[in-house]
């Protein structure tokens, strides 16, 4: 009992002792700024989420607020996602990232991770209760939903040989799991625990966490701010402030935090903290988490590629890594197939729709008019969302699932098909019914507009990335989320699409010359 009282009183007094001097922060830490911009999650209860009033709240928001208070500046929060957080930090959109970011060797090459981590956790898989998956090894060859930019996607694909379908947001991955688009959802254990505490997920269960790693605050580069944060987080571990936050947000006590607090509270014989910054502002080795998820192994030509990156800033390492390379090549094939299928589909829809629009039967003409208006006057991105998540959700309740790539092909075909139908119907109206070679003349007249909408649909295939079809935009943004090689990937992506569009223009022009003008 006495021991308890001592611990509690120390826990209460220590923060006061430690926080008070910390208030006198060197102004050099964030320069002359009067504002601290912190990137936090908006979709990750209870770490960063929107409360009932739509305000950002959570454990990480509390940390951000405390930092701003210590620095004596106002706080501005920016919502980030797993796929754009490192990018926003690198671009200077945020000064600090506190966004459930796992600390890994790869990421340490991109940003300055604050040591020690303020929290930690591993991966888990959320599964329907009746799933046949019992242990991690059962995941081999199974399709899992994931969230772009999460650490686990790559690990699950390379080590567990699971197929990962990474969605752009947590919400989309959740919906896809509900719609049974995948066998399970691999994500952070903390987020999955939070779901399971909710009645909505009563029929689901999770795998025991794996790949435990610290979560770190990140800043763009080394400097006074980084050192200040290093010391501040260490101080929080010593005072137990983070554990109290954990309790405040009703989280299960995390193994990481318990161990880290023990380690950082150790003192040497003289009564000084064992973990002290050395002359180079680094922690001693025994205090650091070096058991991180390792960087990819690079050898042979790999070292040359790394040299290219370090010397000229041209980062082609993803193409050396078999996982990313095959993902990118697969994405190229997917984009091509999607483009070809959507062009053929839109031509078929256009011809059928054109005939319906010209029909004398009201029963055929009227629905065709309604549908062409609907598909032309609403954004294709919304059409994709509506079908995949809206209708897909309804079907899932009846045990059916929609495949994202088929949804993309059908929606894009209908969307461009509506324009084609009108062009073909107008052309048909202009050519007399008894004219010789009527189909060819209609085709010739409608050709320019049809070609325009087909080129357009090839461009619009990029939108399929929004429903996690693994095409080029999706593959490129996934690679960027892992590697941060923004410039290289974006230029490659743009070049691929420009080449594709030129090829389609060429193919249509060739068709016009060889077939229509003969």
């Amino acid at each position: 009992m006495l021991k308890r009282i001592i611990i509690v009183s120390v826990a209460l007094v220590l923060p006061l002792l430690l926080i008070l001097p910390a208030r006198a922060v060197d102004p050099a830490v964030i320069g002359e700024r009067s504002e601290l911009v912190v990137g936090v999650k908006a979709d990750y209860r209870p770490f960063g989420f929107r409360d009932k009033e739509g305000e950002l709240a959570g454990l990480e928001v509390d940390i951000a607020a405390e930092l701003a208070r210590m620095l004596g500046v106002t706080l501005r929060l920016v919502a980030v996602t797993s796929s754009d957080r490192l990018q926003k930090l690198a671009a200077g959109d945020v000064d600090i990232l506190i966004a459930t970011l796992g600390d890994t060797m790869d990421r340490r090459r991109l940003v300055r991770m604050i040591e020690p981590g303020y929290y930690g956790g591993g991966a888990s898989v959320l599964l329907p209760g009746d799933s046949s998956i019992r242990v991690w090894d059962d995941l081999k060859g199974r399709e899992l939903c994931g969230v772009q930019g999460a650490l686990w996607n790559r690990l699950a694909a390379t080590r567990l040989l699971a197929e990962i379908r990474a969605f752009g947001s947590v919400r989309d991955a959740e919906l896809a799991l509900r719609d049974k688009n995948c066998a399970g959802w691999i994500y952070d254990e903390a987020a999955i625990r939070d779901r399971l505490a909710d009645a909505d997920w009563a029929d689901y269960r999770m795998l025991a966490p794996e790949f435990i790693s610290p979560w770190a605050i990140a800043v763009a580069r080394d400097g006074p701010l980084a050192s200040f944060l290093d010391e501040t987080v260490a101080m929080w571990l010593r005072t137990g402030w983070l554990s109290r936050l954990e309790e405040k947000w009703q989280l299960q006590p995390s193994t990481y935090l318990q161990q880290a607090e023990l380690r950082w509270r150790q003192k040497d014989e003289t009564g000084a903290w064992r973990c002290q910054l050395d002359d180079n502002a680094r922690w001693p080795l025994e205090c650091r988490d070096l058991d991180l998820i390792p960087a990819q192994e690079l050898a042979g030509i790999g070292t040359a590629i790394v040299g290219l990156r370090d010397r000229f800033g041209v980062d082609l390492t993803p193409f050396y890594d078999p996982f990313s390379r095959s993902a990118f090549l697969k994405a190229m094939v997917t984009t091509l197939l999607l483009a070809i299928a959507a062009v053929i589909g839109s031509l078929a829809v256009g011809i059928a729709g054109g005939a319906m629009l010209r029909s004398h039967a009201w029963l055929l003409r009227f629905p065709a008019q309604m549908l062409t208006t609907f598909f032309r006057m609403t954004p294709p991105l919304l059409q994709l969302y509506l079908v995949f998540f809206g209708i897909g959700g309804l079907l899932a309740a009846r045990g059916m699932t929609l495949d994202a790539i088929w949804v993309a092909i059908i929606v894009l075909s209908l969307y461009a098909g509506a324009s084609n139908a009108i062009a073909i119907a107008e052309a048909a109206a202009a050519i007399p019914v008894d004219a010789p070679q009527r189909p060819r003349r209609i085709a010739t007249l409608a050709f320019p507009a049809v070609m325009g909408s087909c080129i357009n649909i090839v461009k619009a295939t990029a939108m399929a990335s929004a429903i996690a079809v693994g095409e080029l935009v999706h593959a490129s943004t996934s690679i960027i989320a892992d590697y941060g090689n923004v410039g290289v990937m974006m230029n490659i992506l743009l070049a691929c699409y420009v080449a594709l569009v030129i090829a389609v223009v060429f193919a249509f022009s060739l068709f016009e010359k060889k077939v229509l003008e003969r």
Partner: protein
Amino acid sequence: MTAAQALEMLMVWTPFLAEGFLWNILVSIAAMAIGTPIGIVLARLRLAGSRTGAWLTHAARLPPTFVLIFYFAYILPREISLAGVEIHFAAWLKAALALAVAVIGFVSDNALSSLRHLRRGERIEALYFLPAWTTYFVIIVMASSTASVIGVPEIVYRANTVIAATGEAGATLWVYSYAMLWFLLFCWPLSCLMSRIRDRLEGRGNEADAKASHHGAPHHGASQHGAPQHGASQS
């Protein structure tokens, strides 16, 4: 979720979504405001026989807007200073720039055909530019929904927020349908009005090739490959 519950939920969220639609309009107006003058300059260059003008127009037509939005979002810095003026590249401005590229291609082609009509003294035919430009604005408004993928708080982005906030599986279909209705109610009447105006103009004009200037309003600058240019450039 019953229809009554859904309607009540949509009513509650309407101001939030409506504000999002204002963002769509704002981004689209910015895109037109950036793209139109540049397109007209290119058209004038082309009229003077400039190869650069033709080449730039061609280049503006090629990249998909959706890819460009990502491209600008990732590549453009947060702010640059040009001749002492600080330009802050917010996400919406990046989206507007991506859309403006398509606008440049469209305006360059259509303004060129208008300028040619003017040169021949065909005033009414030259006016075809206006309904075509407005119709293209409608297309850009629809394309502005793609700005949601880089976090511009427009209506699709907000629809996603609403779905996440209500947390009910049944809400998804309702919220997306409602967001679509906004586009439909804005775009359809405007586009009908424009085709009526064009028909009026055609009635006054006496050129036969005018018939070709309407086609199914494709998205993303594709109309540059479409009918009006063929008609105009051949005549």
